């Protein structure tokens, strides 16, 4: 066996084994360096896997040498590769920039433990994506969730604690629902391997338990993904988390749950349940539309910068779900593309927020007046990423919104209504991003602290790197587009 064939397993093993080692690195600079090195290594693994997948080969790995369906199988195809890039990229980028912000927010003696939990979260999220086994996905989901509860609870404000408690309760209910669904399918098929499930479900005559399972799994994962109206845990959790954790989680955590939702549904249920595509669309499309409109409207009136952006995340999850609910190749490509582009836009925005927060303790909009004069580079990066979130041509966000509108028009006679929804919510995004811009550039800076200057270089450089990537992938979207199209074709292939 050559080294490259072990990459799917190493994707999980590297961050997971680094996590306990980080605790031993007592000088806290070393702990940060170790965690960052591990995250960069897993990003490199994700890139190598993507290259292999783009070569046309799904990377399959049999854990312990036991072949599927008896053993646990890891499989990386184009859809997993795309999400892996997002997860490990968000982890590596956030960790690279994290040190100044974490030094400010987390006590020195707790930092090694904090970085360790961060790596466990990364390992869990990567594990969900590479795993092709329904129960294994549950275990990794709980590893990543437990790690993110710990990370969010690290927020300095006491309000982080009730927020994380709510997240813990709702997250656990979601995971347990998923577990019930998997149990029902196992009861009817005797297998946990996703591909094997689809094959064996063809022989199952009594489909009612499978229908119930589809319901439990969809609701459970929708809770984890913060699909409207199951999103109530998200705004508080993201607002109160340490700033760099918000960057990491906002960029990838909910998207991984959406990834499992889409994969499970298309691989297992679409081909086996009668009329499932219609039910899937009928159930999820209204939720997606409501999420887009309501969350965007709430964000327009939100006065706290972090909470505003967190609320907008709920709307963006709606876009991803909307694409998936078309049950068409163009819709899925738009979804996959938006997973990638929204991670870039929202990751960049929260990085800029972390830069602002380095000097501004209070992130309410009325306290941030005139910040652009003191932090010009931070504010400019925030504007670029904000444009990408709105979907201005030339930025990454434009590509996925364009794809989504095209898919909506293809989806049927009422497609133009969906286009109207997307346009209206984009206008609302213009409003809430403009409120931030207005505050930063034209707000009254009167009473503020005059010693405020730019954020540390480490933070600022990564922020600008992400901002430039937003423009780069807006002008040259070939790489994510190739992955998104391939994953859409793959998923529709299962469903067909």
């Amino acid at each position, binding site marked *: 066996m050559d080294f490259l064939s072990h990459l799917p397993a190493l994707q999980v093993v590297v961050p997971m084994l680094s996590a306990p080692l980080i605790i031993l690195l007592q000088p806290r600079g070393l702990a940060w360096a170790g965690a960052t090195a591990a995250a960069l290594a897993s990003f490199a693994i994700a890139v190598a896997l993507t290259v292999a997948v783009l070569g046309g080969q799904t990377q399959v790995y049999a854990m312990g040498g036991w072949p599927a369906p008896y053993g646990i199988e890891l499989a990386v195809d184009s859809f997993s590769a795309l999400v892996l890039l997002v997860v490990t990229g968000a982890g590596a980028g956030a960790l690279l920039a994290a040190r100044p912000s974490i030094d400010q927010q987390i006590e020195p003696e707790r930092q090694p433990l904090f970085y360790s939990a961060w790596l466990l979260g990364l390992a869990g999220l990567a594990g969900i994506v590479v795993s092709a086994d329904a*129960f294994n996905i*549950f*275990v990794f989901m*709980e590893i990543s969730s*437990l790690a993110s*509860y*710990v990370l969010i*609870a690290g927020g300095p404000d*006491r*309000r982080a*604690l*009730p927020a*994380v*408690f709510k997240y*813990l*309760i709702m997250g*656990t*209910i979601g*995971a*347990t629902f998923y*577990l*019930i669904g998997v*149990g029902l399918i*196992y*009861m009817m098929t005797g297998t946990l391997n996703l591909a094997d499930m689809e094959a064996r479900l063809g022989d199952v005559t009594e489909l009612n338990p499978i229908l119930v399972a589809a319901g439990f799994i969809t609701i459970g994962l929708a809770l984890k993904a913060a699909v409207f109206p199951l999103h109530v845990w998200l705004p508080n959790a993201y607002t109160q988390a340490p700033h760099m954790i918000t960057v990491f989680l906002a960029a990838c955590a909910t998207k991984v749950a959406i990834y499992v939702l889409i994969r499970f549904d298309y691989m297992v249920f679409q081909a086996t349940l009668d009329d499932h595509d219609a039910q899937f669309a009928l159930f999820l499309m209204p939720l997606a539309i409501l999420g887009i409109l309501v969350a965007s409207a709430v964000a327009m009136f939100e006065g706290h910068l972090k909470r505003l952006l967190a609320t907008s995340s709920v709307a963006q999850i709606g876009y991803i779900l909307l694409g998936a609910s078309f049950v068409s190749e163009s819709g899925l490509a738009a979804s996959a593309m938006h997973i990638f582009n929204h991670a870039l836009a929202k990751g960049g925005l929260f990085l800029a927020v972390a830069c602002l927060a380095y000097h501004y303790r209070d992130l309410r909009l009325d306290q941030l007046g005139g910040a652009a004069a003191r932090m010009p580079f931070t504010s400019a990066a925030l504007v670029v990423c904000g444009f990408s979130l709105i979907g201005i041509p030339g930025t990454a966000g434009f590509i996925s919104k364009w794809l989504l509108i095209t898919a909506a028009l293809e989806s049927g006679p009422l497609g133009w209504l969906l286009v109207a929804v997307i346009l209206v919510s984009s206008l609302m995004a213009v409003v809430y991003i403009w409120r931030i811009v207005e505050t930063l550039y034209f707000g009254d800076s009167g009473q503020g602290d005059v010693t405020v200057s730019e954020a540390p270089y480490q933070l600022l450089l990564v922020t600008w790197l992400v901002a430039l990537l937003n423009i780069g992938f807006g002008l040259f979207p070939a790489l994510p587009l190739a992955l998104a199209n391939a994953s859409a074709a793959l998923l529709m292939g299962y469903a067909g």
Partner: protein
Amino acid sequence: MKLLELLGYFNYWVFAITLVIGLYAVISKSNLIKKLIGLSIFQSAVFLMYITMDKVEGGTAPIIKAGVEDQIYSNPLPQVLILTAIVVGVSTLALGLAIVVRINERYGTIEEHEILDAD
């Protein structure tokens, strides 16, 4: 006959009822510890579902012994799965309790409505 059929699903009835009792406690109780107790009941219900489905009628513990053939075995896999799920449940409960301790330290109460009023 109909009644016997319903009784035949006894374990699944218990599963469904326990699940709902747990969920009710999570939603309706204001005390955070009681919420966690509800969450634990909710998760235990699922353990019962998994354990029930692995039982094969007339089956025994799946230990292969030399000389014994044609023996029916119960399915060991759900038990292994649920062992993992129990560990996950215990960790979640432990973390939840730790957070409640912290909430009590910072707010001086573990009643949800009082916490909401405090901020």
